[in-house]
């Protein structure tokens, strides 16, 4: 039996060590290291102190000075100590003695985002704006105009060009009609031969081809194609008479013997 005076801590430690040894013997331990024994004794002491402290907290939470069984059970739950089954049943099933739960800091209530007032349905971007492009401003922030505008500069150019081309074509058509009308022996439907069929402009056909044997159709005897053109020989050098007649041309100097 202990005296009224407070026993020393060393005495309490010895008692706790004996309790730990008893528990170890129950588990068939033969020896225990001194360090391990000291560690377990310290843990026992600390655990019991924590249980007492937590029980006191729960008692004060219930505005009481005298602790109850429920306070102790709540403290063990708080310290996550597994109690025997008989005590666990109380924690799970007993509803007459509700456990005091320590006040915890409630998570800040995140206010709901205010409902955005919808004035009009959101416009979507144009189909040519892809997702990989930089972020474009919202469609409602800018005015959209049509890509093909009648007053656009490129349309005036095109129309002007088209007008010029039409004028050229008209001129060519009228010229060709004029030529066809003024040509001799040729009607409107006649084929216009732009190359005059003179002797100087003989048209030769390829040699050793059958086409040379054929006779041209719709061509008179005078303008029949021939294989051997009669091209007059034209000398490149000027004659003495031409030189003497031309005052600007001096006769070539002959070498002195």
């Amino acid at each position, binding site marked *: *039996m*202990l005296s009224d005076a*407070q*026993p020393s801590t060393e005495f*309490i430690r010895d*008692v*706790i060590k004996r*309790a*730990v040894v*008893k*528990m*170890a013997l129950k*588990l*068939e*331990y*033969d*020896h*225990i*290291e001194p*360090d*391990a*024994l000291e*560690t*377990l004794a310290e*843990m*026992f*002491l600390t*655990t*019991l*102190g*924590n*249980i*007492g*402290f937590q*029980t*006191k907290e729960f*008692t004060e939470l219930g505005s009481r*000075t*005298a*602790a*109850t*069984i429920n*306070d*102790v*059970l709540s*403290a*063990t739950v708080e*310290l996550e*100590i*597994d*109690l*025997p089954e*008989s*005590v666990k*049943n*109380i924690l799970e*099933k*007993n509803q*007459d*003695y509700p456990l005091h739960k320590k006040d915890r800091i409630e998570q800040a209530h995140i206010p709901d985002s205010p409902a955005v007032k919808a004035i009009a349905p959101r416009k979507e971007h144009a189909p040519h704006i892809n997702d990989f492009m930089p972020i474009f401003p919202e469609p409602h922030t800018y005015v959209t105009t049509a890509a093909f505008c009648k007053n656009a500069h490129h349309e005036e150019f095109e129309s002007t060009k088209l007008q010029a081309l039409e004028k050229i074509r008209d001129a060519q058509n009228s010229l060709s009609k004029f030529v066809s009308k003024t040509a001799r022996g040729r009607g409107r439907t006649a084929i216009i031969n732009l190359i005059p069929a003179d002797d100087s402009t003989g048209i030769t056909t390829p040699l050793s081809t059958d086409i040379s044997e054929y006779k041209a159709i719709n061509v008179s005897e005078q303008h029949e194609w021939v294989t051997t053109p009669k091209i007059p020989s034209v000398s490149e050098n000027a004659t003495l008479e031409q030189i003497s007649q031309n005052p600007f041309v001096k006769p070539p100097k002959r070498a002195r013997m």
Partner: protein
Amino acid sequence: MPVNPDQPIEQLLIDVNEFTPVLPDTVSHLLLTRAGLDTEHDPRIARIASLAAQKFISDILLDARQVSLNRANKEMRNTGSKSKDKPKNVLTMEDLTQATAKIGITIQKPPYYH
């Protein structure tokens, strides 16, 4: 007031009266008083608190025992020796460190001490 054994709380109180913890009630009462808890009006509170602490330490001892058994079996398999002498069960700091690590308690010896 008659005791109804069907009620869990009453069953608990019956069990507490029957079960005697390893730590004497006086020491439990003293330690709880030092922590700021008054248990004079109801001694069962000290018993329940002592029971909870005893349960906690017993679980650690059980885990350490399991660790030592696993290590012994491993050594038996590696060496293959079959000694007739029964091996001594010694609670070492290594086993205790591994057992407490499971519940989140780190035990480390300081590298140097006076």
